[in-house]
């Protein structure tokens, strides 16, 4: 069958290679197209790195200073470019987003791969694709119009968790304003859900079917099979999914900027406003002029973001190398 169609397709073609092919033009062209990617990445990294180090090279800020918790470019005693609040906020907001999203996403991936009947898959999978397609500004808009007022109205009083006998075990001040760490994390957790779900789903599907049937034949329940066989086997795939989700969350700009409140302070409570690397860049880039130290500091933040994402790529590679090796 395959041979038949192939023969049909080749009918009428010259058997001899054309001139272009004899000097190997096609190969060169496609090679160039593929290599252009390296060029783009190299260019991008070089540009951002060059701009990112200007703060140290040109403006004489020491590398240690950017790890100060004080960000005040207008300080009377001279600008202070401490990036720690932004880095800490990026880490914290991303961490809580993953904490919310990972159980949900992995659960959903398990549902799709192990539990769902075909009709349910046919409904859920396209829905996930729509989730991916909803633009970040739309998430931000939903965050402002629905989530932020909801948080402010519902949890304005102190938040206390009480157990029936032990009494209050946890309490913290409520939301003075809905623009907060929590709002940022919630928006991000939904935005990274499709990424984590689809990559974990692939990891679960990659586990050979015989292992499942073998396990079930031994009399284990489906949950025991999932817990003791599927999750351990797919662990590196799930970790990859989480790292990819983390990268997406740390790099998301507009949706977070719209709901997080943009207060350059060190994270202390989940109800407080924060500002992440991306949101601070969005805030200040337009108001500063190319070449002034203030904008150089923003480029340094971009460099930090770039380092975070490259690190995560390396991390994913290491995880997968270990999987292949084991």
């Amino acid at each position, binding site marked *: 069958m395959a041979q038949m169609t192939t023969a049909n397709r*080749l009918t009428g073609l010259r058997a001899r*290679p054309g001139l272009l092919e004899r000097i190997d033009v096609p190969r060169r062209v496609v090679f160039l197209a593929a290599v252009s990617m390296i060029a783009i990445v190299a260019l991008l990294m070089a540009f951002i790195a060059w701009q990112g180090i200007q703060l140290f090279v040109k403006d004489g800020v020491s590398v240690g200073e950017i790890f100060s918790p004080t960000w005040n470019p207008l300080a009377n005693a001279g600008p202070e470019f401490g990036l720690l609040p932004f880095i800490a906020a990026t880490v914290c907001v991303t961490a809580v987003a993953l904490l919310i999203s990972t159980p949900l996403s992995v659960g959903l991936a398990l549902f799709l791969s192990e539990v769902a009947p075909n009709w349910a898959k046919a409904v859920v999978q396209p*829905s996930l694709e729509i989730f991916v397609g909803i633009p*970040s500004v739309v998430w931000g808009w939903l965050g402002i119009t629905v989530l932020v007022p909801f948080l402010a109205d519902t949890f304005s009083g102190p938040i206390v968790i009480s157990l029936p006998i032990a009494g209050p075990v946890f309490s913290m001040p409520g939301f003075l304003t809905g623009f907060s760490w929590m709002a940022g994390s919630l928006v991000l957790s939904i935005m990274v859900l499709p990424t984590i779900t689809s990559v974990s789903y692939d990891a679960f599907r990659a586990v050979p079917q015989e292992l499942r049937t073998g396990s079930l034949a*031994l009399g284990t329940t489906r949950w025991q099979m999932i817990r*003791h066989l599927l999750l351990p086997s797919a662990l590196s795939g799930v970790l990859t999914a989480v790292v990819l989700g983390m990268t997406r969350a740390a790099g998301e700009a*507009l949706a977070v900027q719209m709901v997080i409140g943009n207060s350059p302070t060190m994270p202390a409570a989940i109800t407080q406003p924060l500002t992440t690397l991306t949101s601070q860049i969005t805030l200040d880039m337009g108001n500063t002029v190319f070449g002034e130290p203030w904008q150089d500091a923003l480029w340094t933040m971009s460099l930090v973001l770039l380092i975070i994402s490259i690190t995560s790529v390396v991390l994913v590679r290491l995880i997968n190398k270990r999987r292949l090796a084991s």
Partner: protein
Amino acid sequence: MTATSGSFGRPMAPKPSLRRKSSRGSILADRAATVVLWGTGVLVLLILGSIILHFALAAWGVVSPSFILSDPSETTLGGILPVLWNSIYMLVLTMLIAVPVGVLGGIYMSEYASENAVTSAIRFAEEAISSVPSIVVGLFGLILFVDDAHWGFTALAGALALTFFNLPLMTRLSEQALRAVPQEERSASLALGATKWQTIRHVVVPLAIPGLITGVILTAGRVFGEAAVLLFTSGIGTPPHYNFTNFDLLNPASPWSPFRPATTLSVYIYKLNSEGLGAFKNQIVDGSAAVLISMVLLFNLGARGIGRILTRRLTAS
């Protein structure tokens, strides 16, 4: 209690502990897990359903043919024609650059590449750039095209920055589509005396077309929704009235020209939230968001539909 709270072990083979008979407790745990897993599926559907319902209700009475076909206004509801046009324009411009380069790159990776340092560098670059935050790509475009090249905010600057952003995805999806073509098709073609390039051009690529088109449409959906890249490259403003009969590509006044600022629908939503004026501001945002989501929906359905039709047609021949 969710599915992930179980402890992760290392071994691939079933543990000896699994060999015991299912106890009452383990059956209960299994039931509970099934319920929880169904619950996640239902929850995600509920979230998506309520979001779509939210925008459907919010857009009710806003989105109409005249909303799609009018210029923006501050005193009336107006419309989104120029920004919608810009979104489609940017999409086409970006795809004009990204599709050829992406497909050719995919051909190299699938048909020519051997496992060497260059190939692994390309793969690393692919992964690296798809994980770079879009705002960083936007800033890169800002220095390179807007400032250094003195183009100012232009559609071309935005399209090039978006190409950087989408090329890896396009390349990877093309590579996947090409790899999915069975090896025996290639062997058969080569056995019949076709050259490698003839095989690729007349056998592999045609068979991979459904996958390639799916790749194009999925990449296109991303272009449509992207805002952070374009904020810094193609500009943020209310577009002037477009005269669609002006086809002078070098005239920045022509809506067909790549040398003009082009605020897209996603950027426009951001703009309205930041600087919008007028009593209809919120309705316009809701309407725009609904249009945006519908377009993305159409792209996804389109990708599936076209892929299915082409697969049927090509495999039937």
